[in-house]
């Protein structure tokens, strides 16, 4: 598939590294499923996964859960501090350290790799810091350079080691794209240590990390060891990247850091909840990814974990309460429907008002004229009123129910109060206030109406001289008692 035979190209170290990198992509994609099981019936595979019978399954699940926790937690701080790219740069910068960790004793020793990767990661972030402080370059340029530079160096080192006699069997290339099945007991031990460390420090120092992230200047004035806290957070982040490397791979680690935390950011307004949600989503993504990749043959774990996390993000994007696309659309729709209903009610009220409430019902034709709509449109509006029990209809005459009457009167009241307020308090001309009131009448709350009443000294006529329905009329019964109360205001001029 991929040309690897050109010897002149392979002599070039950098290009050789790239080729080996691409080569390992194909091998990883083929080999990166959990365990060496040959069954392909997915039900049987699912059962094996869910019963956790295999030790390799247990390790893989435990490993992905642990890294989901750590990444979700620390990713939360990255997202709110707008440092998401730092996670990306860090995950690439650790690669040369991984390779050098291998060189230590030419085998996969988790501790040596951990130390090498941590040192490389810290060196990378240190260099970013140095570049931004000593040159005119901004952080994004420095991150981009360090990311690619360290990644390139890592690829070169790895390609060199793979050509060594023992290099091929080490599985060093798995660090590029991850392989959950390669997680062993040693790795789990290291992951557990890091997870406990991260969880413990974030719990103990939550208050400090929160303030340092929100307002570092203020944290210094509060005599918090701001610099140490920031460095500490970076160190924990480096640890988390290193332990995630094996399951997800250097290329996709940043997705595990950012996506669960970004999803949690859509769900809540409080930092502690965001961290908890991010942790849970990270864990779920880990397990789901491991499970999905286990179902078929030749399915890689890391990409499935990232895809699961992205799936959770898509769900949150559409369905997050209050902020999701669907709830927002639903709220806008309900409001639209409510406004149309209220306008219809108002039209009925006004038709009846013009005849001093001598009648109880209006015909559809009158309503259509008043609303300037077609007969069909008005018919639909009336049906919508009937569906919420605001009106009843006999043949083509429409009468309001008590609750419909109440709502109609309060909308008219809102409208006229607002008009009066605009002419009185804002000194607008009476012929300028109608359009504004048409919008405000639907959104005035109970409190605002009470305030308006007080400011307008409980006036009973709008700027055009029409009566403002009184509170009694709003709460009154439409039959008999309503007529008595409302007609008490006399004929409108």
């Amino acid at each position, binding site marked *: 598939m991929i040309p690897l035979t050109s010897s002149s190209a392979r002599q070039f170290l950098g290009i050789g590294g790239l080729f080996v990198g691409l080569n390992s992509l194909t091998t990883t994609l083929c080999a990166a499923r959990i365990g060496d099981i040959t069954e392909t019936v997915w039900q049987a595979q699912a059962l094996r996964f869910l019963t956790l019978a295999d030790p390799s399954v247990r390790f893989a699940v435990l490993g992905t859960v642990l890294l989901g926790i750590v990444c979700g937690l620390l990713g939360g701080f990255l997202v709110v501090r707008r440092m998401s790219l730092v996670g990306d740069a860090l995950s690439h910068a650790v690669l040369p350290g991984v390779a050098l960790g291998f060189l230590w004793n030419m085998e996969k020793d988790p501790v040596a790799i951990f130390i090498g990767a941590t040192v490389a990661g810290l060196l990378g972030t240190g260099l970013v810091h140095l570049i931004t402080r000593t040159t005119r370059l901004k952080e994004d340029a420095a991150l981009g350079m360090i990311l690619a530079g360290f990644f390139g160096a890592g690829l070169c080192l790895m390609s060199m080691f793979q050509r060594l006699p023992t290099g091929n069997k080490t599985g060093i290339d798995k660090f590029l794209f991850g392989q959950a099945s390669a997680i062993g007991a040693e790795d789990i031990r290291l992951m557990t240590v890091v997870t406990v460390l991260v969880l413990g420090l974030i719990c103990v120092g939550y208050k*400090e990390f929160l303030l340092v992230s929100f307002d570092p200047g203020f944290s210094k*004035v509060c*005599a918090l*060891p701001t610099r140490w806290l920031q460095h500490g957070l970076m160190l924990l982040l480096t640890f988390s990247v290193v332990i995630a490397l094996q399951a997800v791979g250097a290329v996709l680690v940043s997705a595990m850091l950012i996506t669960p935390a970004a999803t949690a950011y859509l769900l809540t307004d409080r930092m502690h909840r965001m961290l908890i949600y991010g942790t849970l989503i990270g864990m779920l993504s880990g397990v789901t990814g491991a499970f999905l990749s286990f179902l078929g043959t030749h399915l890689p774990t890391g990409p499935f974990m990232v895809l699961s996390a992205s799936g959770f993000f898509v769900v949150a994007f559409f369905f997050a309460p209050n902020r999701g696309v669907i709830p927002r659309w639903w709220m806008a729709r309900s409001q639209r429907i409510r406004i149309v209903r209220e306008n219809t009610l108002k039209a009925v009220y006004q038709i009846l008002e013009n005849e001093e409430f001598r009648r109880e019902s209006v015909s559809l034709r009158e309503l259509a004229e008043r609303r300037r709509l077609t007969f069909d449109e008005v018919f639909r509006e009336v049906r919508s009123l009937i569906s919420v029990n605001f009106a009843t209809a006999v043949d083509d005459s429409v009468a309001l129910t008590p609750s419909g009457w109440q709502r109609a009167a309060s909308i008219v009241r809102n409208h006229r109060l607002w008009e009066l307020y605009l002419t009185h308090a804002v000194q607008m001309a009476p012929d300028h206030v109608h359009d504004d009131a048409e919008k405000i009448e639907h959104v005035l709350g109970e409190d605002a109406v009470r305030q308006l009443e007080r400011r307008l000294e409980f006036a009973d006529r709008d700027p055009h001289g029409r009566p403002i329905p009184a509170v009694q009329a709003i709460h009154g019964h439409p039959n008999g008692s309503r007529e008595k109360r409302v007609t008490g205001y006399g004929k409108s001029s």
Partner: protein
Amino acid sequence: MDLSDRSSSLTTAPIGEESPLEVHDLTVAYRKKPVLWGVDLRAPAGKLIGILGPNGAGKSTLIKACMGLLPASAGWVKVFGKPINQSLLRVGYVPQRESVDWDFPVNVMDVVLMGRYGKLGLFRRPTAADRSCARDCLERVKMLPFADRQISNLSGGQQQRVFLARALAQESDLYFMDEPFAGVDAATETAIIELLHELRHQGKTLFVVHHDLPTARNYFDWLLLLNMRVVAFGPTEHVFTYDLLQKTYGGRLTILSEVAEAVRVKEA
């Protein structure tokens, strides 16, 4: 009276009493380019002090350097007679509103509680007493009904009052405020200045970076005129003069006419 003369400014606080803020020959540089030159100050206690100066005069730089947020290339700062890092807990700070991300997932109460963090000490959680203190502070800036609001759902003036409440929660003796009136409506400005006067009556010393010349004369007891160095520092009635303001603001025409107007009103 020209108070930029060092010997006179050094004697402005009563001898024998620890000055809330004493600055000696403070020089601050960004990338080797000095933005503050040889600042000498000795602030009297219990005064509301306005820091005035044109853009780039180093007003924010001065208060940041006083709190140790920026490194000084020369000179020293003493707060209540001690180096700044030994008396930080007696210092309160209201940063510029733009200095933080208002989309941060915290609510108003969370932010005000942050004012307690210094006194709480490392790794200790806020107690019920801290919460009730934070509530009192919110009440004093009339923001208690907003305690559960996410901070991005606030107006500029409300955000500024949240920062003030946080500073109140610090219960400090010396306050630094970086443009607390920026982007604030007139009603909030009045409320804030009343609060500052109240704090001054409690014997606290307040340094307030301020932009508006005409109001400065009414708001502050003392003024610090700054333009990369101290032009003048003293009681407002001595410092708010045409000559000194002209010296501070240089040849900027619009500012100068503003100054002329302000001085004319004062002398009328």
